[in-house]
């Protein structure tokens, strides 16, 4: 009798342990966890010796997906001058153009060429890649299709030269940890040319030409200290700022003149 009771207890304990293990297995993060994104250096402070920064983006992703990571500022309008030949000989600024609906900052990085990952409709809908930008940016006044294509190409080159646009592929590390969890990591050189403001970080998981998941984060760039004080004064108190600039210039001029008094001869 006593032996049977102990056997029953052991059987129940084993059954409970099996159930608990099963329950834990169901509740644990699986290899097909949702996409996440974190920008590790998301609050960039601009002080007097700021010379750019780095921003890393990392997270977990489903196995076997391709990734597209986009960091961009809000769309805005930018005025530029168009050059053309005048009198058939001299290159001049001939027309003021407005690039409408264009992000001032646009960095995109992907595991494969974005154009091979998604169809054109999805690229344009999500503003992914230079090709999509060329379809979403409008030029005012309106240009011929050939001129528009040329100007948009030049606009992207112009922004790339200013370190405000970049498109690259292959610089995203994807690995799977011992528990079978895939993760990704990439690091961007953040240019000092990127002005203060809020930037959105968007990560797209792509499989079989479809976006399977997305995740967002953000990067905030703000001025602080002397840089902020001078910038605010220039914008909000231009008169006083101008008088201060003139005062400092005059003082510097007289000051240096006084120092050089011995060398410059006398009146």
């Amino acid at each position, binding site marked *: 009798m006593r032996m049977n009771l102990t056997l029953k207890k052991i059987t129940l304990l084993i059954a409970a342990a099996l159930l608990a293990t099963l329950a834990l297995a169901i509740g644990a993060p699986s290899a097909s966890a949702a996409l996440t994104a974190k920008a590790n250096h998301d609050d960039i402070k601009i002080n007097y010796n700021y010379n750019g920064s780095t921003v890393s983006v990392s997270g977990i992703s489903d196995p076997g997906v391709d990734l597209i990571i986009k960091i961009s500022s809000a769309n805005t309008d930018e005025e530029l001058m168009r050059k053309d030949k005048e009198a058939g000989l001299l290159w001049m600024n001939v027309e003021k153009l407005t690039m409408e609906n264009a992000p001032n900052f646009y960095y995109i990085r992907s595991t494969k060429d974005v154009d091979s990952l998604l169809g054109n409709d999805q690229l344009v809908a999500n503003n992914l890649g230079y090709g999509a930008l060329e379809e979403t940016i409008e030029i005012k006044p309106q240009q011929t299709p050939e001129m528009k294509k040329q100007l948009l190409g*030049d606009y992207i080159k112009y922004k790339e030269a200013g370190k405000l646009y970049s498109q690259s592929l292959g610089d995203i590390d994807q690995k799977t940890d011992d528990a079978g969890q895939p993760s990704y990591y990439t690091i961007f050189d953040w240019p000092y040319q990127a002005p203060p403001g809020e930037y959105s970080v968007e990560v797209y998981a792509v499989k079989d030409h479809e976006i399977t998941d997305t995740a967002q984060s953000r990067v905030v760039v703000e*001025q602080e200290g002397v840089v902020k004080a*001078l910038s605010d004064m220039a914008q909000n108190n231009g008169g006083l700022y101008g008088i201060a600039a003139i005062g400092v*210039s*005059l003082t510097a001029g007289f000051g240096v003149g006084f120092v050089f008094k011995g060398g410059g001869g006398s009146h």
Partner: protein
Amino acid sequence: MYIYLPVAHTSINILIPIALGLSVGLLSGLFGVGGGFLMTPLLIMFGIPPTVAAATDSAQIVGASTSGTYAHWRLGNVDFKMGMFLLMGGFAGGLAGVQVIKVLKAMGNADFVIKMTYVVMLGVVGTYMFIESVNAMRRARKKELVVKPKAESGLSKALKKLPFQTEFKKSGVTHSALLPIFFGVFVGLLAAIMGVGGGFLLVPVMVYMLRMPMHVVVGTSLFQILFNCIEVTFLQAYTNHTVDFALAILLLIGSTMGAQVGAIFGRKLQGEQLKILLAILVLAVTVKIVTELTLTPALLLGAAGGGG
């Protein structure tokens, strides 16, 4: 060491603006030019936005021309009386020039007129100064400097009949007060159209039209440029918010010292040598502008705004 410029929104090695200031300040003290026609393109080349480059340069010129004027004043090279008359004319000419630019912009060909004015004025002034200085130096070498009594021209006689004849003791000339005012208007008009301080135009006007000695011309030109640039700096800061204080200070460190060295250096050179060096500088800038205008640009787009 890098410094972040709060208005230009850019970062720059501090040695770059100091070196630029030193070089342009040296030319300023040497020739009596503000140097805006050199400094603004150089700043743009180092990544400063065109509008900020032009506005900040004017703040820098205030410091350099103060330093230069002070140095030349101690050397007895500033004709304040002539400077004031030129300033009066320059102010009126500047106001007229701004209106001319408005009309040209409305007509849609402002850029063409500005660029062509630049090329023609720089080319004519540079070539004339160069030829005239070379001839003067040749004459000096052949000891032909024995004063030949020159017949007074009709124009010269007519100018002497103008009212308000005034003696400018420092320059050793007598002119009607209307003459420097007229030339001030002319230079102010062109300077406003071209978007520059006008020193490189004012120097030849004072040398060839007002017959002032070269060393007094340099000091007096700097005095006039100082006041012009004070006005421009204030207006740019007040209306466009494009003066970068940090950049201006770095440029000033170099330019104020450069202006002093230039003034000392200039004392060791003869007037004709100074003129020929300025002529070469002006012609070099002309060639650079003509090259830019004729070569096909890499991009058909450029920044809106900007200085001369």
